[in-house]
């Protein structure tokens, strides 16, 4: 079968062609009847626009000293929102540090979330049980083991719910990824292992992170792997929805590799000019997930320019609202340094606390 030549794809997209429903130019290339109403499809676009605007605001907030180091997600909106959107309220997510867009879909309060980046709390400033969104996790791949343990708990409880772990391409090199994935297979748990392969792990391209294709790892663990175009929000939604359905039906875990691209720096502390050609980023912009989905939605008549303008306006207002909240977030009381370490603190611990607080 001859494939029409499109624009050159990022190097890490090479190899097995991913599941794709909408081509980079916005034309349908698969069955786009995925069971979502036009209003819901429009809502997906709205979420992507709102998330991107907030991401950019966060970078500005960092530059202005209102946030500590911030890891942007521009270019990964479809991967995050398409996947999080496929989850139900009973499902649970264990994220990395780059899933603010997914957190918004799960209903996590952005200002609370950003306490993490403001340096006023650790990875769990929001309530992970209420939001069913686990703490932001920095030690690479460790949260995948948490997700598998959580999924095992759901299975033991006989729930029809699953647990989704997010992680990056670089994360697949850690022992914890492997141990967790293998255990997921052995215990046959309702887990979705969702890899955002954005081409980079700080300065190391995926092509030097592993010599294999990430989705293929699944076969060695005895469960299905799926490669999906991570910049095609519909394809991501479908792949995740199917994995979630498998999990809920007791059919075990799925590994999803979503091919996307990290358009920005690794974080506001990073200077990609040291290791990446600007030209590569320019090429990758052709695959922008928002442009692609908007083009398709407009062509399909599901949205119009008025709607898009309303999304932009909402995004702007939301970014300003979050900014105000962030800027207003005070430092936590000093006691908090001692108040959460133990559920049952010892007398010795309380003594240290009193001493430290001068009580």
């Amino acid at each position: 079968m001859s494939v029409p030549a499109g624009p050159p794809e990022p190097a890490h997209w090479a190899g097995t062609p991913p599941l794709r429903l909408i081509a980079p130019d916005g034309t349908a290339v698969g069955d786009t009847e995925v069971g979502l109403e036009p209003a819901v499809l429009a809502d997906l676009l709205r979420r992507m626009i709102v998330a991107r605007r907030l991401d950019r605001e966060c970078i500005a907030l960092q530059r202005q000293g209102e946030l500590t180091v911030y890891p942007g997600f521009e270019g990964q909106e479809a991967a995050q929102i398409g996947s999080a959107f496929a989850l139900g309220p009973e499902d649970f997510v264990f994220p990395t540090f780059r899933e603010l867009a997914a957190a918004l879909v799960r209903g996590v309060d952005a200002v609370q979330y950003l306490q993490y980046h403001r340096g006023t709390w650790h990875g769990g400033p929001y309530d992970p049980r209420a939001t069913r969104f686990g703490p932001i996790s920095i030690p690479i791949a460790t949260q995948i083991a948490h997700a598998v343990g959580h999924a095992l708990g759901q299975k033991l409880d006989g729930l029809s719910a699953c647990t989704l772990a997010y992680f990056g391409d670089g994360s697949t090199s850690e022992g914890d990824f492997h141990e967790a994935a293998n255990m997921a297979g052995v215990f046959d748990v309702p887990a979705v292992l969702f890899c955002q392969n954005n081409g980079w792990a700080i300065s190391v391209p995926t092509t030097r992170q592993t010599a294999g294709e990430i989705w293929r790892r699944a076969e060695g663990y005895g469960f299905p792997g799926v490669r999906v175009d991570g910049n095609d929000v519909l394809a991501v939604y479908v792949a995740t929805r199917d994995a979630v359905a498998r999990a809920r039906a007791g059919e075990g875990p799925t590994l999803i590799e979503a091919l996307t691209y990290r358009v920005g720096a690794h974080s506001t502390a990073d200077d990609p000019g040291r290791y990446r050609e600007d030209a590569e980023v320019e090429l990758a912009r052709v695959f922008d997930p928002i442009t692609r989905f908007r083009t398709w939605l407009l062509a399909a008549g599901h949205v119009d320019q008025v709607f898009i303008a309303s999304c932009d306006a909402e995004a702007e207002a939301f970014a300003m609202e979050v900014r105000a909240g962030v800027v207003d977030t005070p430092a936590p009381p000093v006691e908090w340094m001692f108040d959460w370490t133990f559920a049952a603190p010892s007398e010795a611990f309380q003594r240290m606390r009193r001493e430290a607080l001068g009580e």
Partner: protein
Amino acid sequence: MSEVREWTLSGALNQALRDALAEDPRLLVFGEDVGMSGGVFRVTDGLQTEFGAERVFDTPISEAGIAGAAVGLAFAGWRSVIEFQFDAFSYPALEQVIDHVAKMRERVRGRVDMPITIRIPSFGGIRGKEHHGESPETYYVHTAGLKVVVPSSPLDGYALLRHAIADPDPVVVLEPKARYWSKEAGALTWDGPGIGVGRVVREGDDAAIVTYGAMVSTCLEAAEALAGEGVQTRVVDLRSLSPLDDELLARCAVETGRVVVVHEAPRTLGMAAEIAARVMELAFDHLEAPVGRVTGYDVPYPPASLEAHYRPSVERISAAVLQAVRY
């Protein structure tokens, strides 16, 4: 409270797990070979048969994964007892234990507890091979967010393990391999002192030996020998390495003026360092001699044929007490 009978440490720990599993349907026991094999030291013997393979199960050989799974299970409302097969085989999980097990409650501001018990057959004295004789306590005691206990006898083993499992916080239980088959008669109960409380296992006012685990019996032997020389030595079984029983440490220093700490771990930054520093802080003016340290050396745990030269002996302990007394 169970009937009075003779218990081994292994048997008492087994009973603690059995009783806890029976009382709490949301308690799980998992690790390498804890199922039908019953564990290298038989501590989980029969539990899978009794409680089913859903609640007592073998895992792949994935220590980090095991610890990580326990964290995830805690989010799902399950309480876990996990086993690492030997001291050194707990090290692959150190990242999960330090970064997550110990810190998770803090990270999520108390919204999720981490009721995880980490059982580790530990310490030397069984002619084990390399990596089977390590004393890992420093790694755990220094890690804020963990509690660490070490039983020295069967009956106290039962009590400490029950307290550990019931605790809403993560507790590391270091089980002295050399004492698994030691025997003690009595009824199993955990009504007595919990985590954070030490006990005096022999009275004496001339000096105090502070120790834990398998060294308790060696120190009791030393105290007996010292009594022969007219030195009345108190022996303290710490039971809990984190938190430490500061009151008891202070009392020993105040009442005897001479404290010797004994452990198998290498000297530098072994427990004796912390205890020496605390005793000085708590009772400087009462000390008649520097706090003595009788410990392993700062070398890798030696092969079986040398371990007797590495572990504190009755002779080394007695000599240190005499040195303190004669200071």
